[in-house]
């Protein structure tokens, strides 16, 4: 097998990334409450050392596809032991409301029709750090999101092989990851059958044309295009077709939103609904926060996306939202990918400026200045904001 130098280098980086980062931040310093994870110069900004949670520095988002080793990493328990997901040992079992029970090896799946979808994957808690009052959880800022090409098989093809029975309404996913302590609930999730049978919902074994890295769910993960990443189970080993939503903490308590607005600071109570589709959102990738730019044309650029709808407009404001100017949508245009945008700005005076951006999708949904507060801090999509200094 021929591996290009570039891809070999990337693989080495993927392998080294975690151990390097882990070793740099000694737990002793963290125990003493130092914010050791604030180093933004590396490939990822580490939020939690173990289980490893890290976000992408926003400067990387000037690239349409987010490279694998810079793609944000999030899981509740960390990856399973490598031998549990090695190609020799790994199997996908499909059971529940299906005819018989079925097992698939990776070879079986590779022999089925392959599809590639470019899609944004975003943590439901991306931007949690911006909610006021603050809410508990990993304090993600702007980079728990990425855009990648996912290659795999349609979930409906896998379910079709197993023949779904009458009464099936939900499809449950279980990965091979396990908590350290057995009394902690497993990360068990389900999606409605309608989303499971959508032709764009896939089980991916490749990411950006390379085998799925272990941190991203090797050998197989769910991709529910347009939906938040809590539905995109990694290290997938079991699919169960069932009548109801999954029981258990991660479906019935976590990853839910109140159905009616709650008072900021209140605790979760009353009716709630699972987090599903992403909301319309945009980010400024350049210039960067605190950057000094020279007067003359400055390219303001970034990306925008919206769950299952198309982004039709991105606007930029340089006066705290009093007036907005439309940016130009550029680059590739795919249904679930983000859209890049650009606006040339001609600052004529020196000083400090705040750049804001907001996106609007085809349904007319526009990013609000700040998102509705909710107890878990999900779905932040307030206007993005970057402060720069203009030097003459």
């Amino acid at each position, binding site marked *: 097998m021929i591996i290009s130098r570039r891809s070999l280098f990337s693989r080495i980086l993927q392998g080294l990334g975690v151990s390097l980062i882990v070793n740099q931040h000694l737990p*002793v310093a*963290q125990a003493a409450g130092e*914010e050791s*994870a604030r180093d933004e110069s590396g490939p990822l900004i580490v939020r939690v*050392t*173990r289980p490893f949670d890290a976000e992408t520095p926003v400067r990387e988002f000037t690239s349409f596809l987010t490279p694998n080793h810079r793609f944000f990493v999030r899981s509740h328990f960390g990856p399973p032991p490598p031998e549990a997901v090695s190609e020799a040992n790994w199997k996908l079992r499909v059971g529940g409301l299906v005819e018989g029970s079925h097992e698939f090896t990776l070879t079986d799946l590779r022999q089925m029709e392959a599809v590639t979808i470019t899609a944004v994957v975003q943590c439901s808690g991306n931007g949690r750090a911006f909610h006021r009052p*603050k809410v508990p959880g*990993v*304090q993600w800022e702007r980079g728990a999101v990425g855009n990648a090409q996912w290659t795999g098989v349609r979930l409906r093809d896998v379910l079709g092989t197993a023949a779904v029975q009458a009464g099936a309404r939900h499809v449950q996913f279980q990965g091979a990851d396990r908590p350290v302590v057995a009394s*902690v609930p497993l990360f068990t999730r389900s999606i409605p059958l309608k989303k499971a049978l959508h032709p764009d919902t896939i089980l991916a074994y490749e990411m950006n044309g390379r085998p799925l890295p272990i941190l991203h769910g090797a050998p197989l993960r769910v991709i529910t295009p347009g939906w938040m990443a809590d539905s995109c189970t990694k290290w997938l080993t079991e699919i169960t077709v069932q009548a109801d939503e999954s029981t258990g903490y991660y479906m019935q308590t976590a990853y839910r939103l109140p159905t009616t607005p709650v008072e900021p600071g209140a605790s979760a109570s009353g009716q709630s609904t699972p987090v599903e589709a992403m909301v319309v959102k945009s980010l400024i990738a350049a210039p960067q926060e605190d950057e000094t730019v020279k007067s003359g044309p400055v390219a303001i650029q970034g990306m925008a996306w919206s769950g299952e709808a198309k982004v039709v407009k991105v606007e930029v404001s340089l006066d705290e939202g009093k007036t907005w100017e439309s940016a130009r949508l550029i680059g590739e245009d795919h249904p679930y990918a983000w859209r890049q945008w650009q606006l040339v700005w001609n600052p004529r005076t020196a000083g400090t400026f705040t750049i804001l951006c907001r996106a609007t999708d085809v349904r007319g949904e526009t990013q609000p200045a700040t998102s509705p507060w909710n107890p878990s801090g999900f779905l932040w999509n307030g206007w993005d904001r970057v402060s720069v200094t203009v030097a003459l």
Partner: protein
Amino acid sequence: MTNAGHMIIFSLVIGLVGLAVVTAAQEEDPATVSAALAPRAEGLVIARCSVCHSPDLIAQQRLPRPRWEATVEKMKHWGAEISDDETDLLVRYLSARYHPGAPDHLSPLDSELRKAEPLTQEPVAEGPLTGVAVRGAGIFEHNCQGCHGTGATGGMGPKLAKNPILKHEDLFWETVLHGRGPMPAWGSVLSRQDIADIHAWLLAR
């Protein structure tokens, strides 16, 4: 009463009120409270919380006391072995250090962890300790397994079953007491008897 007498009583009252205000302020100043509780509380964080997650997850939270209470209860419900006394200490510490008004970048604690008070007070043993392997199994499970894996077969930390370090007791003790690389110091969390028990159990693996 003379004017001077009034003045003395008046000054005394003002002084007492002032003293009470100062004392109350000191008692309630979150920085003072967290610094006082830190030596024991940080040991607890390592022993009870970092079995499942690194303490940086805690340090980035800024929550009011009721939220900290709910969080500690949730962790106990999920299996964190925290006694009632420890719960009280942890909640007081966490809500004093990581409260909503605390700055994003907190200054590091003065106390180094290795100087922290031991959680279990025990008389200093005379002579060599004899490890009890049966006890060691349980202590390992609650303190070491998170990183070194079930049965000490390795995880994020190295495999310890049949690890050559077991034969070099001085190095083993040095590592456990004072930490090494990414491994934190356990001297403030485990008693010497605990460590001897773990060693005995590991030798039998």
